């Protein structure tokens, strides 16, 4: 059923958040409906089980002693006094754990520091005790003697020939993870401290730059930020009498994490069970094992289960924040301001360990660089570099926010330099049907210009504005992920109800609700008749987990495959009972089965199945992994700011965000992704930054690390372009990594529009703007 164009207006807060849905969305019984979260009531009533809620008999608390030095040799560790403290059950140092290092691709993270520490916050010793307080008191009794070593904090300095080498020994890595990368990849090339160097080329950028009408070169810097999830990293490990290792951990991909843990501790995968827990926000930050390995060794040494919860200080100083980056772009244009070539150099500061990400380098560092534009020649070099700082991980569209800030500022700077309206500059260069991406990939359904136009219209780009007011825009392209295996099981019971068993937690995005809606749609039942069972890693099929906007596509395919099988099995059952051929069986819109002259509802059918010992009936389904969907999506953001010339203060007044979408499965969770992503981006544009001093994170609490509050958010309007074209079942695309990437550049572009000050480093601060205004005044 296709509904008429729908207008959905709501006022969520005093700032007036509005969503204008101009899409005519496919809307069946379940898909397209604003269904309430299936986990909503459990979460708001406190019934949802998070890793920190799990309680077991004899449970101990584990805590870690962390390095105060960014680079030092451990001369000695004395744990005698800590071990003697009553209530302490086990104390471990690097000497007590195997030499095996852990990593999602690069195996470089020791369980506990062995001989050297490489960043402030590195785990040096661990204690399990009856209470957290005793464990913390024990940490204070551990004496560590360090001999400080030279340290390096910036990626550029770390690559110099004289820089201290942070990992002198060869680091083992999983070559498979590198295989999917296109371009020329060198792991651990002969450049000091470089983990990976990727060179991707399409066309001949060098020649195009050499002969171009005009060339523009600009450099940008984006700091590290924290994912900002509410639930800290938490894990609990219990080793059963039969040796089965039970794990409860805040991890977005339990099956893969289980495999990594098995390799690290030398226990077979099927003797480790990751149990289902709710996740209190992930944003890419919960893909690693974090403290799980040390927790396992503490539990083994103590002979009792151990729980570890990172506190907010540890999260902010020693989590796995987003990589900071420095980016230089050189672009050639023709006399009509058309982009001829881009040459990009991107340097990611990985911190002390590379193992927190499952890839050689961050996909967003090159994968969608300038993807919204037709750029016939492109050359990108991406370096990922060790430094003596907090190791970095993934965060929502890894690499893309950093690179997109650069690209979208750069395009704006070129437009202004050429005297061209920034919207016109982008429209003129927007990728369109038939064009290849800058990396030479074929994509379809290229609605870049339409998305920009829809946003510009709603925003009133051409309307007059007062002095001190600035307007800016930015755009971004990103297809849904279609990689990694997803396996699900559908079970229909004698009562006709359907259970979906899957291995992916709902990291907070609302995915379990989406999954329930997809199942319901296949069987034409209401979502209430579908139950979601998050299986443990022994009882659920393999699931690669949430990443790269993949779940709705990959689990959607797995659900479709399982639903097809189940319908076939049910039809065969019905045919047998009705004495007809399975091909005579039809399936009605209400989910009932019909044969010539007969109708059977699911419950009756399952009654028959039960008589034959075939109820409950379970069918598996899998996706067919590829890379990315070729149906990509675009977003265009428009921001309006007011700049105070006397103080440099930037006030964000208004945001319009336009999205080119497929079928919207659930308008509530869809809008939640858009608004949540934008608010995250406002923080990263205006206030968030992990600040280092001598290599140590000094923004160590939420008073100094400034996540935006409701008061910092501007009026927000969402425009959804009519959907369609999605490659996933029901023509869905993806939304999770669309709204958080490009907004900061729209805001800095608006600041430039307001007062002529160009910010090439995030975050925006009033002081930086004032410095720019003063520089302007003294130049005049």
């Amino acid at each position, binding site marked *: 059923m296709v509904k008429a164009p729908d207008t959905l207006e709501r006022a969520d807060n005093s700032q007036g958040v509005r969503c204008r849905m101009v899409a005519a969305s496919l809307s069946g019984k379940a898909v397209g409906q604003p269904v309430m979260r299936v986990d909503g009531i459990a979460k708001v009533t406190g019934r949802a089980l998070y890793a920190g809620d799990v309680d077991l008999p004899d449970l101990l608390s584990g805590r870690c002693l962390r390095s105060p030095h960014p680079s030092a040799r451990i001369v000695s560790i004395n744990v005698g006094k800590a071990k003697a403290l009553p209530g302490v059950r086990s104390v471990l140092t690097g000497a007590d754990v195997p030499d095996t290092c852990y990593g999602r691709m690069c195996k470089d993270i020791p369980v506990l520091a062995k001989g050297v520490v490489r960043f402030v916050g590195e785990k040096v010793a661990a204690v399990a005790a009856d209470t957290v307080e005793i464990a913390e008191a024990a940490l204070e009794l551990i004496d560590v003697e360090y001999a400080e070593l030279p340290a390096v904090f910036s990626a550029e300095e770390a690559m110099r020939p004289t820089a201290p080498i942070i990992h002198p020994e060869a680091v083992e890595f999983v070559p498979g993870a590198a295989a999917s990368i296109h371009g020329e990849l060198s792991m651990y090339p002969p450049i000091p401290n470089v983990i990976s160097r990727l060179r991707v080329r399409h066309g001949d950028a060098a020649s195009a730059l050499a002969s171009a009408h005009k060339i523009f070169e600009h450099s940008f810097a984006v700091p590290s930020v924290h994912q900002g999830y509410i639930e800290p990293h938490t894990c609990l490990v219990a080793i059963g009498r039969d040796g089965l290792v039970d794990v409860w951990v805040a991890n977005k991909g339990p099956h893969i994490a289980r495999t990594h843990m098995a390799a690290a501790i030398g226990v077979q995968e099927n003797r480790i069970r990751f149990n289902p827990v709710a996740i209190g926000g992930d944003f890419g930050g919960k893909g690693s094992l974090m403290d799980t390995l040390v927790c396992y060794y503490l539990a083994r040494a103590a002979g009792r289960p151990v729980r570890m919860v990172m506190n907010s200080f540890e999260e902010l100083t020693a989590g796995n924040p987003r990589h900071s980056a420095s980016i230089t772009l050189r672009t050639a244009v023709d006399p009509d301001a058309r982009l001829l070539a881009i040459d990009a150099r991107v340097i990611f500061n990985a911190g002390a360990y590379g193992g927190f990400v499952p890839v050689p380098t961050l996909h967003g560092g090159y994968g969608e660089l300038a993807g919204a534009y037709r750029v016939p020649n492109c050359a990108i070099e991406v370096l990922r570099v060790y430094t003596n700082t907090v190791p970095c991980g993934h965060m929502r569209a890894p690499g893309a926010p950093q690179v997109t800030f650069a690209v979208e500022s750069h395009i704006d700077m070129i437009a202004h330099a050429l005297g061209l309206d920034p919207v016109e500059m982008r429209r003129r260069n927007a990728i369109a049907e038939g064009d290849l991406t800058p990396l030479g990939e074929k994509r379809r359904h290229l609605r870049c210009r339409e998305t920009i136009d829809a946003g510009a219209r709603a925003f009133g780009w051409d309307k007059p504005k007062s002095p001190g007011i600035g307007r800016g825009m930015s755009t971004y392209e990103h297809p849904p992920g279609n990689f990694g295996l997803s396996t699900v099981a559908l079970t229909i019971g004698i009562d006709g109800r359907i259970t979906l068993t899957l291995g992916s937690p709902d990291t907070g995005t609302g995915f379990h609700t989406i999954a329930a809606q997809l199942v319901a749609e296949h069987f034409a039942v209401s979502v209430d008749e579908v139950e979601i069972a998050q299986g443990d890693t022994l009882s659920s099929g393999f699931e690669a987990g949430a990443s790269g906007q993949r779940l709705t596509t990959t689990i959607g395919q797995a659900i479709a495959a399982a639903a097809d099988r189940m319908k076939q099995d049910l039809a065969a059952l019905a045919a047998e009972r009705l004495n007809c051929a399975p091909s005579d069986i039809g399936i009605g819109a209400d989910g009932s089965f019909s044969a010539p002259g007969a109708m059977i509802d699911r419950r009756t059918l399952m009654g028959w199945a039960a008589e034959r010992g075939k109820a409950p009936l379970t069918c598996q389904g899998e996706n067919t992994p590829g890379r990315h969907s070729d149906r990509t999506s675009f977003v265009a953001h428009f921001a309006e700011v007011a700049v105070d010339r*006397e*103080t440099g203060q930037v006030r964000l007044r208004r945001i319009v965000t336009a999205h080119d979408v497929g079928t919207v499965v659930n308008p509530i969770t869809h809008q939640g992704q858009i608004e949540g992503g934008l608010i995250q981006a406002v923080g990263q544009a205006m206030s968030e930054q992990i600040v280092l001093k001598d290599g140590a994170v000094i923004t160590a609490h939420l008073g100094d690390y400034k996540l935006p509050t409701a*008061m910092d958010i501007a009026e927000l309007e969402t425009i959804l372009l009519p959907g369609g074209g999605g490659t996933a079942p029901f023509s869905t695309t993806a939304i999770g990594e669309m709204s958080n990437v490009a907004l900061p550049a729209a805001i800095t572009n608006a600041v430039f529009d307001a007062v002529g000050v160009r910010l090439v480093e995030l975050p925006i601060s009033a002081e930086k703007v004032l410095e720019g205004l003063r520089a302007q005044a003294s130049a005049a």
Partner: protein
Amino acid sequence: MYDFKYQKAASVADAAKVIGADGEAKLVAGGMTLIPTLKQRLAKPSALIDLGGIAELKGIRREGNAIVIGAMTKHVDVANSPEVKSAIPALAELASHIGDPAVRNRGTIGGSIANNDPAADYPSAVVALNATVITNKRKIAADDFFKALFETALGSDEIVTAVSFPIPEKAAYMKFPNPASRYAIVGTFVAKTGGNVRVGVTGAGPCVFRWKEAEAALGKSWNGDALKNLSVKADGLNSDIHASSEYRAHLIGVMARRAVAKAG
């Protein structure tokens, strides 16, 4: 958080007796600073003496030409008080922009000034309005109350019971807030009371202070332009990840001029 004893004081005298006898005991008013400090294990008091049950510490009243605010009066009550709004609207407005709604519904004026956080809003008003801090022992002039970073004139068994604000002819507060927290990076309170001009500056230095050059200039001419040629030296001002001392010095002037304009 370390363990501590909790005691709800029945009266000011009762609370004073406990803190006089036990130097490790701490008073808790709204707890907006103390509780996070405890949670981070940055303080280890033997006992918390809760002032929340003492009715006489709450409330706002007009006494002659002054507004007297009980120490345990919450920011939200000052912000919404008809007496404060009509007599010293600048003070009500200041209270309405402290932190966020959660802070305003818990935090108290007595707690704020006794803590003397360098970025708190209230101290600027106390100094600029030349308020009198009333304790269980004495009356302390604003100029004598705030001593240094997190330090006041309060003795070991001394408790703020109220603050008396003389009603000014003109007053206004302008704050340059930190994002998210709304603490003052710089907050400037200007007031003209009985012909005297006072300018209280918070957020900029280790402790609230008066900008005396501005006071003299405004005393001669109550006009923002009177401050145009004045500047504050950055030496000794706070410099941190939120703002440099030079930027804070600049903001003092801007906020003062704007406050004068706002006061009318």
